[in-house]
């Protein structure tokens, strides 16, 4: 490309590099600090960025291994972090599969079929997804209290109930998938229909296999959304062993039981897999984010 270069271009590039690194140092400092703190001795002590007496105690506790102190006493792991991580992954994975099933079928009808009330439903979904669940927590609590009386595994303090509650958040995904379906040429489906395939068959045999990329994006988006959700989970789940990570991690930093070092190790431990998923999927997510947003 024949961009006209100004004379001080080189000087500007160096300035940009310098400023970017300065900015990055500032932005990433908290993350480095937490990693350092997770290796630091004790739960209160202060220290330099690189710990003087590095210890793996916090990591052992985070992994559920009891630690023997120098005075002979044994510290038990304060919280079942790995169980929480497993709970989170379980809830998020099942939620994402169900969200995918619900939103693809919806999106198919919205993209390919003509029916009454289509426009109202589509716009209605967009408006309703802006209302935060936090505001309806009292109602959600009452709802699951009632549901639990008839179907116990979907009641309060169950993962089934939590997964169920997350199924309401399909609106944006329906829009994203619908947008993708609309970019796929209809001629294949029309040919299949001529051969006598039912709409369900064309959907399952033709459209779905063609849409794997967007399905992956939606799966990851709803997976991350479910893992990082706090308010609904903290209202529905009551037992420490039922907690998801997002609910459980708060337990470390109560003023009366402040476990800063233990928290740091648990935080790094649980943030790593989620962050990795995000970074690996980032390339596709960026497309999904802008697609979902722009289509409004």
């Amino acid at each position: 490309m024949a961009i006209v270069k100004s004379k001080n271009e080189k000087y500007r590039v160096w300035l940009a590099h310098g400023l970017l690194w300065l900015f990055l140092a500032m932005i990433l400092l908290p993350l480095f600090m937490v990693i350092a703190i997770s290796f630091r001795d004790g739960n209160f002590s202060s220290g330099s960025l690189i710990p003087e007496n590095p210890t793996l105690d916090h990591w052992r506790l985070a992994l559920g291994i009891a630690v023997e102190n120098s005075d002979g006493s044994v510290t038990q792991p304060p919280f079942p972090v790995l169980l929480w991580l497993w709970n989170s992954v379980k809830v998020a994975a099942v939620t994402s599969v169900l969200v995918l099933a619900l939103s693809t079928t919806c999106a198919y009808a919205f993209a390919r079929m003509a029916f009454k009330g289509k426009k109202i439903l589509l716009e209605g979904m967009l408006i309703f997804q802006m209302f935060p669940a936090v505001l309806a927590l009292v109602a959600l609590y009452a709802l699951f209290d009632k549901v639990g009386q008839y179907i116990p595994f979907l009641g309060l303090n169950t993962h089934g109930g939590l997964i169920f509650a997350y199924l309401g958040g399909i609106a944006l995904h329906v829009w994203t998938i619908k947008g993708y379906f609309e970019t796929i040429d209809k001629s294949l489906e029309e040919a299949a229909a001529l051969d006598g395939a039912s709409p369900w068959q064309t959907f399952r045999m033709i459209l779905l296999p063609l849409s794997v990329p967007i399905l992956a994006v939606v799966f990851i988006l709803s997976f991350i959304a479910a893992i990082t959700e706090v308010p609904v989970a903290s209202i529905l789940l009551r037992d420490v062993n039922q907690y998801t990570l997002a609910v459980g991690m708060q337990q470390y930093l109560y003023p009366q039981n402040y476990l800063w070092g233990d928290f740091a190790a648990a935080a790094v431990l649980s943030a790593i897999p989620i962050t990795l998923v995000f970074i690996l999927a980032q390339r596709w997510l960026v497309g999904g984010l802008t697609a979902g947003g722009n289509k409004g």
Partner: protein
Amino acid sequence: MPTSDASTVSTPWLKWFILALVSLIGGYAVVLMYAKGESSFALLTLILVTAGVIIFARKETYAHRYIYPGMAAVVLFIIFPLLYTVSIAFTNYSGSNQLSYERVQQQFLQRTFADDRYQFKFQIYHTDNDKVLLFFSQADKKLISEPVALDQNLQQVSLQATDTPPTGNQAKLMVVTKNRNILSNLAVFTPDGTQLAMSGLRQFAAKTPLYTLAADGESLVNQQTNEQIKPNFDIGFYQAVNPTGEFVGKPMAPGFVVSAGWFNFERILTDEGIQGPFIKIFIWTVIFAGLTVVFTLAVGMVLASVVQWEGLKGKAVYRMLLILPYAVPAFISILIFKGLFNQSFGEINQVIEGLFGIRINWFTDPILAKTMILIVNTWLGYPYIMILCMGLLKSIPADLYEASAIDGANPIQNFFKITFPLMIKPLTPLLIASFAFNFNNFVLIQLLTNGAPDIIGSSTPAGHTDLLVSYTYRIAFEGGGGQDFGLASAIATLIFLMVGGLALLNLKASKNQLA
């Protein structure tokens, strides 16, 4: 080709059978719920089941079959809770008034008192095997049980009259205390059928209902004191009445739910302990959401422009590192900041103290707490705007910059004269959405400050850094304010209206763009 749509193609009878079954079960559930006085849940089930059956029964609504499951989920978990919340706003539903009137009446009627006429002394005797005998005596009356094992399976015992106390070893009081749970759940029946229950460590007594329903079908009469109480439907409590029917006594717990009309909304407008904090929190919420959008937009857009710059090497690395704050789950990074900003042992204060010798009250000074929240939220939010801007920057034609370079413009002029004006229009709906999201950014406040520092003179839990959502949450779920669900729902209803307005605005902004 295998048919995956068996119910509509090959076996129509199966489809009708399933539909009939669903209607039956659904109908039964609706009747059951309605009978229990849960009319809103009955209505919800009725609507969902009817819609489902109609949609799957008729050929004309074939397309709707595809959207039914998804729409049912939206109705169940978004729209119903919304409407239910609005309906709670018009009631006195709260920690002290949780149950329906019928349930409270039932509870009062189930209350019993130990009737002195049927009070028995009670003793346990060991028998030869591990079993025990329960022995009851009252003046000259003596009753005894069969030999029974004292364990969780023991739930009721029938007594027989006897002339002499049993001969075995009398158990020590310790045995009674040890088995207290079993004994206190034990139903004991005398030969004439009266039910006795434990009333003390050494005593069993007959339990007779404390209240009986009066002739008017509402009032209850206390059998012990003959006092008459009556439900007061204005406040949702039973109260004692005098002979002329006026309420004179204290409200008696538990209360029941009654309609409160516009009372909760009136409180927001007129009650000083609520109106003051409400307005303060509302203003802060708007400022917070607005400043967050401005800061994240400024940082994100500048970074996007720099990172997309042709001459810069290592763009991919910068991009990845800059996105990191967005990639780390927010609930973890917010808690990390909570620890780092901690006033006594936080690393940030230690650094500042080392450098300048001052200690900053991040959590007790309102202005500083708000500053901290904005810093953290900008950290959390700029990568999202940056990602969006990077996508949009690609669509700006390069010859515009070419032309400006010929005219001798510097990068700063480029940014303000070309980049910003061209990007702000497509960004508008996204910024409105971002504003709406931050307007309701509950997780940030809940995890970082939980509203601290507190607003003084507020009659509900309220803090300087509370947003309307977290304020609502605390009114509903924090013990101190008595769990006022009605008031919380009234505030939530007001927020619904504002969010609805924002949503419509957003829809309009994005339509403008397509046009």
